[in-house]
């Protein structure tokens, strides 16, 4: 990603071929990873709550690809893509999902509740919305230290109802902090449809309540997300204060792998499946003159290989030792502890 980033920074507006293919690879890798996770969940190799982001790959990709190393990203429970695009090794991520020792949280927490701060990915709690104040605090640090970095906080449209979201956005607005708020509006919070969550159409309209700009974009259109993010993050990095991007999207699976999503209308699903971000982007690549069939096959082979390796790595990795349960609660040897 840093390498790709450099290319984008070189001032071109038309993305280079390799970069476009890199974006494609990421979307495909995320999708393949999600599918593998669903399968492993059915096989009981991954257990606990598993939240598929299939259908929303263009968002993690389009938002994270233009970011810089050192930027702070707080993903949502469905944002496996954030981890991959930020460069977390697929094997470690798979180990995380299986509760294995090399996982991000060393087996401590499940699914995406593990961070990789070296790659600027924060490990969130389950409490929806609670990572927005944290992202704002990260942005505060960037400001205080005059770092040219930004914080990115992902949240669902359902999450937008929580008080923490309000408190975070308001403070970011007051201090014009370098934060990008990304709403993934997939029309449902678990079973609860939009109209039971809010009386407005666009979450982005809330930005005005905090004195900054809100944008709506098709979250299934990778190029649109990417281009908007580039423009917006450039302003934020330049000190223009926070902005919000609302990505309209849809999740193809149920809320979690336990959920058959019977509350949804079949037509609605069908419509949104016709907006699958991957074929949409393939259509663009075709227009650009690529041999899409070849690229697809190559990419599938590559992602298959990566995933195969990741699963093998994770499966062969040991579980943590029982006694490790009592590690990582506190710093190993705090200088302030009188009892050492």
């Amino acid at each position, binding site marked *: 990603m840093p390498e790709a980033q450099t290319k984008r920074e070189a001032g071109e507006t038309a993305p280079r071929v390799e970069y476009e293919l890199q974006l494609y690879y990421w979307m495909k890798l995320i999708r393949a990873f999600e599918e593998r996770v669903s399968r492993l969940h059915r096989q009981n190799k991954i*257990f*606990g*709550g598993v939240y598929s982001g299939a259908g929303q790959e263009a968002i993690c990709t389009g938002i994270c690809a233009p970011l810089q190393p050192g930027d702070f990203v707080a993903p949502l429970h469905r944002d496996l893509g954030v981890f991959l695009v930020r460069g977390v090794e697929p094997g470690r991520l798979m180990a995380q999902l299986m*509760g*294995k020792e090399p996982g991000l*949280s060393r*087996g*401590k*927490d*499940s*699914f995406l*509740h593990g961070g990789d701060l070296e790659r600027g990915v924060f490990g969130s*709690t*389950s*409490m*929806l*919305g*609670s990572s927005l104040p944290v992202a704002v605090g990260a942005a505060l640090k960037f400001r205080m230290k005059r770092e040219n970095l930004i914080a990115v906080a992902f949240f669902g449209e*359902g*999450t937008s*109802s*929580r*008080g*923490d979201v309000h408190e975070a956005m308001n403070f970011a607005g007051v201090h014009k902090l370098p934060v990008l708020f990304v709403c993934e509006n997939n029309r449902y*919070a*678990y*079973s*609860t449809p939009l109209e*039971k*969550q*809010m009386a407005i159409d666009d979450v982005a309209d809330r930005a005005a309540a905090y004195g900054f700009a809100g944008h709506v974009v098709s979250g299934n259109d990778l190029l649109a997300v990417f281009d908007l993010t580039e423009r917006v993050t450039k302003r934020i990095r330049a000190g223009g204060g926070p902005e919000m991007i609302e990505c309209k999207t849809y999740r193809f699976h149920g809320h979690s792998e336990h959920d058959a999503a019977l*509350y949804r209308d079949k037509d609605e699903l069908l419509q949104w499946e016709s907006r699958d971000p991957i074929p949409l982007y393939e259509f663009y690549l075709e227009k650009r003159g690529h041999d899409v069939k070849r690229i697809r096959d190559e990419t599938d082979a590559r992602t298959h290989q990566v995933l195969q390796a990741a699963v093998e790595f994770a499966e062969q990795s040991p*579980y*943590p*030792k*029982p*006694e*490790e*349960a*009592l590690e990582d*609660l506190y710093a190993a040897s705090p200088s302030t502890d009188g009892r050492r």
Partner: protein
Amino acid sequence: MEITYIQGINQALREEMQRDENVFVMGEDVGELGGAFKATDGLLAAFGEERVIDTPIAEALIVGAGVGAAVLGMRPVVEMQFADFISCAFDQIVNMAATLRYRHGGHASCPLVIRAPSGAGVHGALFHSQNPEAWFTRVPGLKVLAPATVYDAKGLLKAAIRDDDPVVYFEHKRLYRSLKDDIPEGDFVVPIGVAELRQEGTDLSIITYGGTLNQCLDAVRIVAKEDRLSVEVLDLRTLLPVDREAILKTARKTGKVLVVHEDRLTGGFGAEVAAIIAEHAFEDLDAPVRRLAALDAHTAFSPPLEEYILPNTNKIVDAIRSLAAY
């Protein structure tokens, strides 16, 4: 008819909604979905959208709006999708609801029930495994329940709904479908504030509640057979107000007490139980009051870690043996 623990909860809700039109349920996904665990299954069809309210993700609102309706005479039963998220409604519970009668000088009531699916042992990890009861058992004005049987799940919930004060009702996720029982049909209520002796014994007493009751009973069967130990088991059922008499009675009877819960050791409700016994049954004790609880860590995800942290039947058996040998 044999029903599960969660069916007991569902029946209690349904019957109370039938009995009293002021009872209504509110929470995330309680409507068409019937709740994340199906506790409110079928209620939307039976009672309609006005009495089965899907809310946005807003725990403070859910509890606070419950208080507003309750203070005007309604009897809301609100659901936290997982007990873990009760931390997001904390202020509304411990300050708004718990002090309501007091700060109105007795001229107001808050008949609100907060249902909280709690408990570990289902690979839920840090944020879907919590047993937060001891945050609430220290708050005057609240009542805190933790049913361990199908009968109590139903009867205590009905009592909670009829109670004129705010009740936090901790149901244990692991019991939802694993626990089945043949309970009487129709209306019955389990009184709040009364513990239940699940097993009489003479050598030592176990005091427990909620998710660990059955582990304790299993352990007691094992030591009865293998060690010929006669162990008494007291199920607290209500944690606030706790049944001090029952606690002291069993402590005085056997002189040896093991307190067991799935919540963490430090600051768990067992500390209060142990302190009560240490203060008020001192002369009758033949051994230290022992506590067996989750280790002082968050409930980790990976199976070896989770198992290491949580209490279980084997650990209880060991604790019984060591205490009996004291």
